[in-house]
């Protein structure tokens, strides 16, 4: 078939950012998948609660302290996370490097406290269905923290190599920051379920 050139795209920028980048949309897609997963896990929690005679079943209410500390750390991490994203947007590589190191630490700290959270549940996963679902909720969210932490660590390392100075990689930093916000936001309903619903 004959072709006629009717448009010129040579002046378009190479690699768009935000909604002009496919990775941004892909990240959003995976967030939607995971959000559905979280919503269903919470639905399972509520379902089991609705058929249980007592809730928590055969266990004391979980300790508030570690979970609340994790919540506060996660909320506090939102600000530096936002700043890293801004710096990446402005292609300020020096600050991005520092910011990613900070964010790596802010990924490790909640993981350490998380270890104590499992004890604070005061029930085992194999005690009963209540124990199973709180462990599953907590485990599910922990894998999300680990996933994002791994991503952050790799990006931090990358930023210290010659590949860092590149808009595409800085876009990855922004997408990673968006995903971290998601990790923080999904925690809040889970936190409410595990710690506050039994106290209502």
């Amino acid at each position, binding site marked *: *078939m*004959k*072709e*006629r*050139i*009717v*448009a*010129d*795209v*040579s*002046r*378009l*920028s*190479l*690699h*768009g950012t935000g*909604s*002009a*980048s*496919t990775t941004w*949309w*892909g990240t959003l*897609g*995976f967030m*939607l*998948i*995971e959000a*559905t*997963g979280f919503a*269903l*896990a919470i639905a*399972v929690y509520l*379902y*089991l609660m609705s*058929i*249980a005679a007592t809730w928590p*079943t055969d266990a004391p209410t979980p300790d508030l302290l570690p979970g609340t500390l994790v919540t506060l750390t996660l909320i506090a991490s939102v600000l530096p996370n936002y700043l890293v994203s801004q710096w990446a947007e402005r292609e300020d590589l020096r600050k991005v490097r520092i910011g990613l190191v900070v964010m790596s630490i802010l990924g490790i700290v909640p993981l350490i406290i998380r270890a104590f959270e499992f004890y604070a549940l005061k029930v085992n*996963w*194999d*005690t*009963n*269905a*209540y*124990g*199973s*679902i709180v*462990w*599953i909720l907590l485990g599910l969210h922990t894998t999300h923290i680990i996933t994002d932490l*791994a991503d952050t660590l*790799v990006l931090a390392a*990358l930023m210290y190599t010659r*590949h860092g100075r*590149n808009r*595409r*990689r800085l876009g990855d930093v922004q997408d990673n920051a968006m995903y971290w916000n998601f990790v923080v936001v999904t925690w809040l309903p889970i936190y409410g379920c595990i710690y506050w619903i039994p106290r209502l």
Partner: protein
Amino acid sequence: MRDGETKRDIRDTDLDRPALEAALARIWNTPEGLWGALATVDHKIIGRRYVITAFVFLALGGVLAMLMRLQLAQPEARVLGPDRYNQIFTMHGSNMMFLFAVPVMEAVGVYLVPLMVGTRNIAFPRLNAFSYWIFLAGGALLWISFVLDMGPDVGWFAYVPLSGPQYGFGKRADIWAQMITFTELSALAVSVEIVVTILKQRAPGMSLDKIPLFVWSMLVTSFVVIMAMPAIMIASSTLILDRLVGTHLFNPAEGGDVLLWQHLFWFFGHPEVYIIFLPAVGMVSTMTATFARRPVFGDLAMVMALIATGILAFGLWVHHMFVTGLPRLGESFFTASSMAIAIPAGVQIFCWLATLWDGKPIFKTPLLFVIGFIVTFVIGGLTGVMVASVPFDTQVHDTYFVVAHFHYVLIGGAVFPLLGAIYYWFPKITGRMMSESLGRSAFWLIFIGFNMTFFPMHILGLQGMPRRIYTYQPDMPWHDLNLFVSVSSLILVAGFLLFFFDAIRSARRGLPAGDNPWDAPTLEWATSSPPPSFNFSYIPVVKAANPLWEQPDVLAVAGGLRINSRELIISTVASAEPEAREASPRNSIWPFVAALATTVMLISSIFTPWAVVWGSIPIVVALIGWFWPKGTPEDES
């Protein structure tokens, strides 16, 4: 930096046509040989592989079906024992749903969507390669286990407690559950790719109202996958947890619940039917338009019906649980919604009939399959409305009536359109035509064989024959019809064999097809058959919904892409204005490595929970290898 680069680059507009094609081929081609085969990220190669693999699973599932029919042909037959029969119907159902029907639809989307929206590769091509290997591994897991007499035997929906730790001995149920994890992982990955390809990689000018209907259907399907599959992944993982580490989600003795399993399964399982059916609807609309020689009547209504079906699909799952003693009010709601979904289906059928009525239909093989589809699907839909009513369902639940019903919907609603679609797109994929006369014979054998095989099952069901029984006694009034069904299934199989024969023969010896043998209107027909690795020499610019009909002789295109690296156009979501040029990743072995590592982890975790810990390390290594920049122009731009 960017400006300097612009000057050094070679653009497509700088070269004459042969030089341009040579340059594009250099950068996009997949090298010959094993390495190239393992590393390719070309959506056409992967899509074709996916389709062929899914058809192999169809054939294997068909063999199992024939074994069942052989066993049931007469009372008290001795072909299969009860244990083997349990494995076989479970394998048949699981294989057909998870390894054939869903993957084959996704696969056709992987092949066609990028071509139909006028781009050079699917979004996230490496993820696409990964998803194929994961799918293959899941299929291999299921079939190898079956050969080792470890095939699941708990039915394709693996109800607890039968599949739970108390009754499901050995690893059979775990293998079923982990096969689910594999196939859902791959389906979810493909769905994200397809959504992003459709939203962001459409040819300039292809605004929402100009998107081909098949592409619309894949978009809606992908969203349904994204919302539905997490449910089954949660179900299958928690089943494994219950069996392996002693959680109690499904154990009533410790506060768990068996109906919870059914809710989770069917929250996915009902939409699953639409994950299979909606792409088929898109294929039917495409073929109907081409062979009626006019655009589909009411295409806006079509799109609305697709979206409505996609949404309603999530409000129906409880109709699979009518006999579990749920509250009456709840059941009435799900009866109403199950009947409501007949409305968008009716709208679509009306639009197809109106298109055919108003057009000048040419009855080529694909259109025969379309008509076979309409007839069969209407029958399946009618029995569907019947079983949506609770009193009726209570009578026929778990009988052959239901087996008849869902084969009418699945084979009529998805396999017929799919076979038509293969006849229709085969020339594009291979560059050769399939045989019209063999195609007609195959159609009639399949259509007649299908109805003779499955229609009597309605009657068997009404006569009380339960499903999933490995044999029956001679004093039951069922054996004449069962023999009839079994003999008829030979006609059906003959039709399938003829189809396979035709496809294999035509791939090598069919008549050359040319670019657009059916004079079809959508963009995949604007490039050569089979399409070059880069799909289009220039990215098309779209001005109409049926570009090749409105402008039959010239293709409007956009120039100015670089040709010394893989590059394509990103456009805006609604109006498809070009927004950016984007690099598309090169071939890479890492998706294959990552899939291998994931396979090792998933299979080991059936046996020990620690596999999740040590098994994740190679996955992380593979993912770093995958994403770490290699200094190619695509990485650096």
